[in-house]
């Protein structure tokens, strides 16, 4: 015999054991609220901040090199445009950190939280990882510029090869960052798919209920019609 009542009784026994546990006292709470978070969001925040650091480093290196290449117009233009792009990306990442912090502090239901986080992960966070990969690839370019800035004669002999190298750099780092974060996305989507299954279950239940109602109405009408016909024939 395993009715749900006995499960409830067992749960009450378990709860009474838990009520004796007083681990969470003021000392514990004071310590816990000053520790670093180990959450998925905290990891995402660390990764975004790492990207911000790389972009800032790129900006410093490019700005520093700009002075040495004022006479070399093609390279100076490349540095100037890169600087602009890097600044835009840095601002974007700053906005994303604020967005993520705001999601964390919003008082939402589990469903809303999951949807918000997955959306952030698939859009903003993916873009942030791309920006980080871009910043990583640009470090190499900045390093090349710095190495040869003494005489301001940095020349690109093979533009397609250079672009290919940087694109490969970018693709490699982007895949690496994406791979390292994919486990979080899987965890979040698993929870969401479980929730969505609940909603589908409700829809199926509703549809089954409606089907039963329609069958019942159909049968009742048929019986009434049949009864009417029979009564008509009897009467006539």
């Amino acid at each position, binding site marked *: 015999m395993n009715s749900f009542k006995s499960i409830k009784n067992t749960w009450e026994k378990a709860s009474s054991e838990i009520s004796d546990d007083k681990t969470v006292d*003021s000392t514990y709470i004071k310590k816990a*609220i000053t520790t670093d978070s180990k959450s*998925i969001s905290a990891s995402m925040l660390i990764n975004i901040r790492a990207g911000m650091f790389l972009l800032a480093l790129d900006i410093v290196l490019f700005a520093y090199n700009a002075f040495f290449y004022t006479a070399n117009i093609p390279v100076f233009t490349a540095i100037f445009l890169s600087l602009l792009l890097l600044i835009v990306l840095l601002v974007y990442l700053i906005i994303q950190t604020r967005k993520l912090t705001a999601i964390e502090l919003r008082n939402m239901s589990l469903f809303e939280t999951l949807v918000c986080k997955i959306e952030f992960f698939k859009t903003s966070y993916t873009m942030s990882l791309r920006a980080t990969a871009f910043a990583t690839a640009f470090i190499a370019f900045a390093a090349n510029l710095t190495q040869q800035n003494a005489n301001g004669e940095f020349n690109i002999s093979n533009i397609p090869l250079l672009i290919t190298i940087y694109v490969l750099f970018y693709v490699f780092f982007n895949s690496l960052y994406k791979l390292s974060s994919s486990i979080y996305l899987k965890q979040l989507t698993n929870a969401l798919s479980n929730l969505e299954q609940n909603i589908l279950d409700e829809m199926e239940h509703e549809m089954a209920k409606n089907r039963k109602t329609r069958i019942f109405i159909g049968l009742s009408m048929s019986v009434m019609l049949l009864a009417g016909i029979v009564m008509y024939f009897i009467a006539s």
Partner: protein
Amino acid sequence: MKNNSLENIFIENITKHQGIIHKVCNIYCTNHENKTDLMQEITLQLWKSYPGFQGKSKFSTWMYRIALNTAISNVRKTNKMPLMEALFESQIEIPEKENLSEDDEDVNRLYKAIGKLKVVDKGIILLYLEDKSYKEIAEIIGISEKNVAVKMHRLKKKLEQLILSERAS
């Protein structure tokens, strides 16, 4: 000064309702290390969200919402040395089993059965066992009351079956 008094009120409330944290950790974690991590993370997230608690819902409802959100959507799954962990768990489980009373065995079976449910279903069953109304469960999880009712009907049956199979094994 203001922050200090907020902290004191927070500590008082959390200490009073600490059972919620223990229960959520018990159903979402199987080993001690993960349980300790989750307990710490829930306490931290509760503190971060505390300024946003406006008293519109019961304190316990708010606490369940944050605790479950943290357990389900915010904690990184750490699988540190799973083999060693499994060995360690099996080592401590055998002597424990010998000394367990019938009640303790029932509690263990219940936890094991809940552990086999899907991640969100664990939360729903916990709230139901804690006598939360369908309305409160719907509010915490973010699904309709009707949905909770349908879900509970199926979950109760599933949990009974899981406990039966635990008993048989």
